[in-house]
């Protein structure tokens, strides 16, 4: 190897090289974040809790006064007024065009993911009346660390919203009165629920299996068309209600973390329920009390919905109840929509041979076949 490899240019090369390999692995430290929690109260008051990493404050304000590498509570306490002033200079709250007055009230500490934070507690006064909009301009640390982010949680009558402040996006305005963004948050969950049920073919096929025979009555060994829509409607109502109640119960139990079941088991059981419900239309084991079938298997389907929530990391416990309600409501709406589409068609077709042979017979067999394939894949696959 030639000696020029050790020249200054080569040393510089190594710096880049090492940087690359580091990037290929991962970073050992959490990146720089602050957590800003704003709580809009009555009478124009906004409570502020702002958690800022002590390491970040040290970089800009030198908290470690004795330079020994350890930031002590004594050092923080001695500088807390400076810290408060520095931080609050870099946070602007405005309501209806007027700047809010922000007063620091206390300085405490906390830890997030093993990292020490300064906790600035403050109160903002945003004018005499109710706060309807709140504009937040966040510029903390962006001039010192371009990877710094401000994670906002804004609570108000309108619900809770989250936002991230970055160097390029440091100002945002929020509606915080009751007609504001909270509804869109809830609606988002309702929409998620609808999308989930419409995309969830296993749940739909199960429901369909229960609906297919609803427009016919069994006389001896043959299906005859239901005489009027009344018994059909009440049968469907019973079945759908039973399914809804059952899956709502287990959905909430699982989503709130009361019961946990293995995903593979639940998914396999759901596939099995599709098979059994469809085969029941052919072999007629349960004839009159289909709502009981709906209820029993509905319990299993509820765990299925909840396992999706787990995968999406919804907070456990009571804090997450509203989104859960929204999601579940969405599932019910989607389900009712499907019933409203399918049932009239079935009712009109109920007296035809096509219904008896193709829909009820072949349709059920096809559903059973699909369900069996799912079951094999879920229980024994990958």
């Amino acid at each position, binding site marked *: 190897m030639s000696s020029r490899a050790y020249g200054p240019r080569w040393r510089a090369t190594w*710096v880049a090289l090492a*940087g690359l390999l580091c990037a290929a692995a*991962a970073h050992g430290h959490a990146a720089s974040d602050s957590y800003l929690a704003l709580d809009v109260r009555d009478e124009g008051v906004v409570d502020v809790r702002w958690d800022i990493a002590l390491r970040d404050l040290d970089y800009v304000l030198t908290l470690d006064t004795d330079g020994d590498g350890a930031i002590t509570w004594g050092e923080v306490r001695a500088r807390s007024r400076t810290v408060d002033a520095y931080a609050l200079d870099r946070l602007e709250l405005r309501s209806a065009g007027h700047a809010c007055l922000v007063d620091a009230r206390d300085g405490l500490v906390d830890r997030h993911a093993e990292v020490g934070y300064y906790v600035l507690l403050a109160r903002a006064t945003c004018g005499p009346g109710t706060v309807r909009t709140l504009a937040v301009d966040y510029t903390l640390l962006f001039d010192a660390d371009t990877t710094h982010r401000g994670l906002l949680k804004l609570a108000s009558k309108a619900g809770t919203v989250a936002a991230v402040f970055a160097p390029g996006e440091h100002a945002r305005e929020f509606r915080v009165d009751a007609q504001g963004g909270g509804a869109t948050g809830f609606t988002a969950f309702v929409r998620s629920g609808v999308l989930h049920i419409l995309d969830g073919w296993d749940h739909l096929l199960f429901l369909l299996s229960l609906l297919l025979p609803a427009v016919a009555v069994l006389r001896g060994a043959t299906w005859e068309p239901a005489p009027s829509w009344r018994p059909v409607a009440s049968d469907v109502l019973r079945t759908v209600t039973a399914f809804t109640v059952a899956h709502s119960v287990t959905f909430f139990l699982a989503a709130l973390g009361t019961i946990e079941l293995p995903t593979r088991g639940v998914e396999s059981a759901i596939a099995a329920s599709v098979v059994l419900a469809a085969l029941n239309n052919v072999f007629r084991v349960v004839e009159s009390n289909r709502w009981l079938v709906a209820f029993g298997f509905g319990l299993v389907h509820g765990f299925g919905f909840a396992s999706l929530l787990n995968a999406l*990391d919804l*907070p456990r416990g009571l804090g997450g109840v509203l989104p859960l309600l929204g999601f579940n409501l969405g599932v019910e709406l989607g389900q009712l929509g499907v019933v409203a589409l399918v049932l009239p068609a079935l009712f009109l077709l109920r007296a035809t041979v096509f219904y008896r042979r193709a829909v009820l017979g072949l349709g059920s067999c096809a559903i059973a076949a699909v369900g069996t394939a799912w079951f094999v894949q879920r229980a024994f696959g990958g």
Partner: protein
Amino acid sequence: MSAGHRTGRNGRAMLVAFTVAALWGGSLTAAPYRPATDGIVLAHVAPRDGAADVGDIGERVRTAIVRARNSGDPRELGRADALLRAAPANAFPAVERFVLQGTIDQSLHRFDAALQRFDAALAVDPGHAQARLTRATVLQVRGRLAESARDCRALARHVAPLVAATCSANVASLQGRAREAYLLLDLQLRAAGADVTPEIAGWSHAVLGGIAARLGRREAAARAYREALAANPSDRFARVSLADLLLFDQHRSAEALRVVHDAPAVDEALALREAIARRALQDPRWREIASTLQARFDVARRRGESLHLREEALYWRELRQDPVRALDTARRNWSVQREPADARLLLDCARAVGDAATEAQARSWYRATGSALPRGDGENVTVVDPAPAQEGRS
């Protein structure tokens, strides 16, 4: 239709909705407190030796980049970035400014921005070895192999033969010429002997290990990774690769744990491997590590970062037994990074869920690069003999 397909289609829209919800339960539920005495230590920072923050702006930026490299702390990169952006126009020669900015950008996974900087630097000074080597690596990460190979060849006139050979061999091994690349690099390493800095030796051996692994030669790969670590214990790529080989191909969890423990500093990638190994060894301490990792990933997701996607996918698959979410994360990772480890991740995650379309996508990477396809049962990697053998047996 499996659960995997369901989540895949609506997953993105739902994630957005649920991210809002994730904040409702918030991470600020713990109560802040007032420490009992002044002496309580709340955080650690680098001791001030007086040297770190003085000197000209260029020196401070360079110091911050080196510190970021040594500590793995992304803050240092952000600080270097801020210093560099605020520096007056005449603080650096134009080329150096481009190279420093590009180095920061690529470390923060802003690959396209990094490529632009290196392009600009090389337009002014085509002989700038650092710019060329770094660009070659970024191009490789992005899967632009022909361009990467061109940079490696151009490098040969400006750096030591082993450096150019390592650069070229790495790319060639992904262009279906792994066997030649292995022989070439092995020869170069022998020729260089002890006359190499520990960092370069570590890097070259680690690259050799990666090529061996892609050839399906697990023992040779493990040997090369260990040589890399013997030369440079701080080589994270070698350590993580060795841990993965032991964990996922050879099922030697106890050994993987030792490899992690020997590291001078444990970062997220290594902490994750430690948790996976401990879980396999039925050591309950894995749960503690897992919860810290989850907190980190949660914050990263809220920040909209892509730095941890590779680790996060493994986390879902190995620690939370959630193959559906693992696949979703692996797919997102694939849209950012396309290194061998990312292809393997995509393949394994797709197989775990039975997602044929994604598996085909991963397989096409293996076909295109001529890499040995790991067997579906996770037990073995197809062994390709070092001597001329049948291509693409799988």
